[in-house]
């Protein structure tokens, strides 16, 4: 199987290819064409405007319908990927083979993507607060209050530098086509499967092929995408986040440092919330930025750590096709060991205890890969370095911290689940600017309501709301034509 580059409708077979191998057996799964950054830069300069124009030539509602069809094709149909027919079962096998994710988790991620595509109309309505899609298409229009509003597209395409380790993130870019914006995707080197299958499903469903680009390659491809696209998303480490912080053209997704916070009024009933804590830590093999990496409480923290450890500590490594498998492998040789050594060093600090120590070794070495079994750490204060750590497997710190200083100490938090009925504390949480998503009550941090924005509203990122005044009664069809012409 050979995954070619796709240059806004034109397949391109490179002379350079990356071989993707099965993480356990080393068998070749696919070859992926590798292209260079200059090709992306050149294609963006030539084709980005045409990508948006191809979408604007369609009726916005029809685009949404076709995306819903694409969702069904992606999740249930057989589409051609890499020159061969790929069924959903094939997709799951391929994705598991190169990412190390158990097949059961690959299937679960497919359902998330299907949900987003199937509910695209509801999502757009919610994210745009009821704005007619025609307004995004034309750039301006009258909303239901009879007021002219204008939304100006900030880029004809959204660039995406996608990760290899978390197939769950693809839900973030699925609405983009429905917003009349093209896609230029750099697939993750180990996980090209979702972008390739999704692109194939979209095109088969009738989305114009010239609206989508797939550019697999080395890091300079990512740099070219960021450089050539007016708006981009990149997924990476804390270092990546720091590099692009403050760049309005780039939305950067890094570690989430998601947390569960137990208020003093609820903490004595902590056992009631054990299921929520376990699910938040361990769902999707703990790989997501929305997985809980720390639980804060003022008391009972040792008991909480011990109870979570009892639930997830015994988890064993299982073959990826075992329906009971829940742990993903670290497919890059040496990484699991290095991570474990880092954790061991953190555990050795004062005030830190390893709550899963009694459940056997955490690091499991394979022939070509490694695993880390779920790990629970207790910190007697937020001071130890490990209290701020996040890793790509089920790992959680249970941190003892007085409620009064909790919000000062938690640091940046993508998702906070707050277990408290204390109105004053709830208000402090609402006002806390370093918390992004906020759940009140026993909602797992991993449970997302797709009708609400995630790490900023995608519409606000792609469109700028600005003033547009029209003399007279506003009925000037020439402006509409001008708006359309300006995008072609």
């Amino acid at each position, binding site marked *: 199987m050979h995954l070619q580059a796709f240059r806004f409708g034109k397949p391109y077979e490179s*002379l350079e290819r990356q071989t993707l191998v099965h993480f356990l057996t080393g068998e070749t799964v696919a070859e992926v064409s590798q*292209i*260079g950054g*200059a*090709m992306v*830069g*050149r294609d963006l300069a030539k084709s980005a405007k045409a990508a948006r124009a191809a979408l604007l030539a369609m009726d916005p509602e029809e685009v949404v319908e076709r995306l819903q069809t694409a969702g069904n094709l992606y999740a249930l149909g057989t589409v051609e990927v890499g020159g061969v027919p790929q069924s959903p079962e094939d997709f799951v096998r391929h994705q598991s083979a190169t990412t190390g994710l158990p097949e059961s988790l690959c299937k679960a991620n497919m359902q998330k993507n299907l949900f987003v595509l199937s509910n695209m109309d509801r999502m757009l309505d919610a994210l745009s607060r009821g704005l007619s899609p025609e307004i995004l298409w034309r750039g301006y229009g009258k909303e239901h209050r009879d007021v002219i509003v204008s939304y100006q597209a900030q880029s004809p395409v959204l660039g995406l530098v996608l990760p290899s380790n978390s197939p769950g993130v693809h839900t973030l870019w699925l609405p983009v086509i429905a917003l009349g914006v093209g896609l230029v995707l750099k697939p993750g080197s180990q996980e090209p499967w979702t972008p390739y299958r999704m692109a194939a499903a979209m095109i088969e469903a009738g989305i114009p092929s010239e609206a989508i680009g797939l550019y697999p390659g080395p890091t300079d491809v990512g740099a070219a995408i960021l*450089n050539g696209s007016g708006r981009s998303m990149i997924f990476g480490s804390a270092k990546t986040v720091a590099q692009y912080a403050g760049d309005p053209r780039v939305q950067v997704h890094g570690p989430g440092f998601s947390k569960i916070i137990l208020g003093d009024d609820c903490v004595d009933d902590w056992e009631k919330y054990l299921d929520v804590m376990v699910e938040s830590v361990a769902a999707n093999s703990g790989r997501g930025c929305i997985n809980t990496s720390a639980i804060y409480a003022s008391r009972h923290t040792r008991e909480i750590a011990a109870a979570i450890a009892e639930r997830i500590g015994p988890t064993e490594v299982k073959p990826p096709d075992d329906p009971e498998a829940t742990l993903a492998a670290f497919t890059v040789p040496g990484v699991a060991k290095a991570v474990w050594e880092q954790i061991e060093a953190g555990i050795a600090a004062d005030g830190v205890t390893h709550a899963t120590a009694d459940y056997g070794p955490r690091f499991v070495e394979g022939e070509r890969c490694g695993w880390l079994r779920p790990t629970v750490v207790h910190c007697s204060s937020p001071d130890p370095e490990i209290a701020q750590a996040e890793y790509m497997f089920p790992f959680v710190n249970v941190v003892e911290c007085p409620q009064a200083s909790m919000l000062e100490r938690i640091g940046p938090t993508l998702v906070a689940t707050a277990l408290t009925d204390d109105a004053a504390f709830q208000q402090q949480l609402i006002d806390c600017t370093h918390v992004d998503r906020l759940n009140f009550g026993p909602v797992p941090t991993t449970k997302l309501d797709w009708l609400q924005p995630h790490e900023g509203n995608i519409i606000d990122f792609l469109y700028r709301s600005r003033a547009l005044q029209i003399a007279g009664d506003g009925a000037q069809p020439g402006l509409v034509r001008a708006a359309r012409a300006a995008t072609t």
Partner: protein
Amino acid sequence: MAATDKPVFEVADDASVKAAREKLDAHTVEMMAWHFHPSTGCPFWLEYAQSLSFDPIKDVHCFDDLKKFPPFQDEWLRGGPVRRWAPKGLEGQPLYVFETGGTTGIPKSRVNSRDFRTDYEMFSETLPEEYFPKGANWLMLGPSGPRRLRLAIEHLAQYRGGICFCVDLDPRWVVKLIKKGWMEHLEAYKQHCIDQAITILEAGHDIRCMFTTPKLLESLALGLEKKGTTIHKAGITGIFSGGTEFTPQWTRFATEELLDGAFMTPTYGNTLMGLAASRPVTPADGYTIAYYAPQPRAVIELVDFDDPNTVVPYGGTGRVKLTTLTKETFVPGFLERDEGERELPYAKYPWDGVSGVRPFHELASATTVGVY
């Protein structure tokens, strides 16, 4: 090229290969007589010879006998006094010092008198007149400062009857920007260089030939496209380009999409070796980039990773081992920071070549390449 594939280029016949080897052997003996005779050799080699268990003048009868020398340590080239490398036989000649690397610490240096001119005069003979017309003016868009490249390109232009326009580029600053993660500054510096190049190309100087690196060639082509023109339409007919980042795919992309019909010849070189030309790059050959050193002045061998005295079979992968044999410089068996595949002798260059040049895999992660 894999050893089992039938070559699509003209392989040198046995007689030519033999003749080239005999010439190399004779040249080697001549160079030993020069570098190790007190009246002509440089202080470094004359002193070093005292520590050897053999006499280079008496005991080196052919190129293979150079294996008697321990591997050349490029660290010897760091620091002074630089005159210890100046052969006595060149006393009174004007000397240059050229540097390589040097982003941090003391750079490696090589003294030069005429070598860079000779190397580029020889290289000039490989350039097709159709694309590099004699008398045409040149643009040098590449690393300048203490490197020999700027002077060498200017000499090449002059040797061919042209005048060379230059853009200043400091690669050490580029490497620093990358190491610091200042990518915005990197982009701005690159744009600063490209803007100057475009200004010169648009200034009516009738520039038809240029040297540049692959990365800058990309940026120049994209910059010109933004202005609605192309490298070829800007007047360039021939490009001589150098850098380890030349890959078949990049060359194909450049040929098919960037150059608009301008001709490009890839080269491989450095301050120690000089300049290796490539055999013609063709789609039929899978855009293979195969370099041939300017033998007998420099020799490239592809050697076993664990045994630098064993050459790998044709098509096999090995580390690049360089030997420089000019009157100005003697470098026996220096293991380069590159690896590649051993190529069959080519009719025009009847000795071994190297293709697929890339950073040596054991050092690759610590090497910053393709930066300018």
